[in-house]
């Protein structure tokens, strides 16, 4: 019975006929996803548009922010269509964000790079969850969002490796940044024993358990951290959720 899974393909016009738990979970996940999408720009727009080194990088920051706002727009639109207004999260202070990783500010280029390398990669894993999901508008939307998220990750990975390769104090700053964001990234997958995670899978909204997604993330990112000449942080250090 544990593998039992809702196998319906739900369109917007079918939403009203769905089980209350399905409606509640879909509304919840769209709200959190919208919050995460707008949470990124709120971290770095203020300091990084002018603070990134050189005009080309400043443009990268602006374009990245616009793409994340577009992801927010798509999530907010889907939420709005099912009667859930998420527009209030647009102006939330960072401290109110649903996810711990977004309750801070990015003030250095190192942190901007590592955020793309590690946290945007979690974002890709989260969007990936919805590929082939039961709610068809969400399945279609993430297919347009994933290539942009890949672009943010590639930029973050390349820039992080370049900064680390400079060695000395620069490398030390990169290691500190990786140590900080690695813990936040692992926490973003949530509790391994989450009851709700099982319900998301039952209703065909997500594919993997929190634990499985986190393990797959670590298998992908750990070799990349080592390849950049940095140490993979202790996965238990600085964590809130296991």
């Amino acid at each position, binding site marked *: 019975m544990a593998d039992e899974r809702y196998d319906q393909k739900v369109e*917007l*016009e079918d*939403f*009203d006929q769905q089980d209350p738990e399905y409606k509640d979970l879909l509304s919840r996940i769209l709200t959190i996803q919208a919050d995460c999408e707008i949470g990124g*720009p*709120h971290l770095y*727009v*203020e300091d990084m*548009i*002018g603070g990134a080194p050189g*005009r*080309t990088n*400043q*443009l990268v920051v*602006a*374009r990245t*922010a*616009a793409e994340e*706002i*577009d992801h*927010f*727009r798509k999530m*907010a*639109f889907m*939420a*709005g*269509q*099912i*009667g*859930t*207004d998420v*527009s*209030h999260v*647009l*102006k*939330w202070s960072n401290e109110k964000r649903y996810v711990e990783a977004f309750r801070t500010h990015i003030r250095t280029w190192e942190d901007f790079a590592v955020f793309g390398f590690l946290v945007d990669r979690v974002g890709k894993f989260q969007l990936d969850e919805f590929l082939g999901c039961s709610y068809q508008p969400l399945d279609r939307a993430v297919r347009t969002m994933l290539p942009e998220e890949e672009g943010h990750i590639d930029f973050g990975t390349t820039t992080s490796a370049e900064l680390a390769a400079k060695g000395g104090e620069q490398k030390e700053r990169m290691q500190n940044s990786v140590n900080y964001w690695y813990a936040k990234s692992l926490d973003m997958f949530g509790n391994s024993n989450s009851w709700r995670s099982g319900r998301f899978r039952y209703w065909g909204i997500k594919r993997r358990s929190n634990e499985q997604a986190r393990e797959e993330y670590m298998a992908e990112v750990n070799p990349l951290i080592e390849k950049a000449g940095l140490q993979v942080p202790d996965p238990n250090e600085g964590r809130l959720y296991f």
Partner: protein
Amino acid sequence: MVDAAPNTYKLDEYLKDMIQAVYGACSTATAHMKDDQKTVDKALDDCEEVLDMVMEGHVDEWVS
């Protein structure tokens, strides 16, 4: 059919316009990166202005 939340469509249209404005400014800046630094700086200022406006999130004003 479930009722949409108020302003869902208006907010979507507004954000689309804002996002296109940033993309447009980025394209202008990219095109002039090697030959016109004033245009690049102006485009970056435009990006910052639009993004700041979105971050402020005054949705009621946008959809009124």
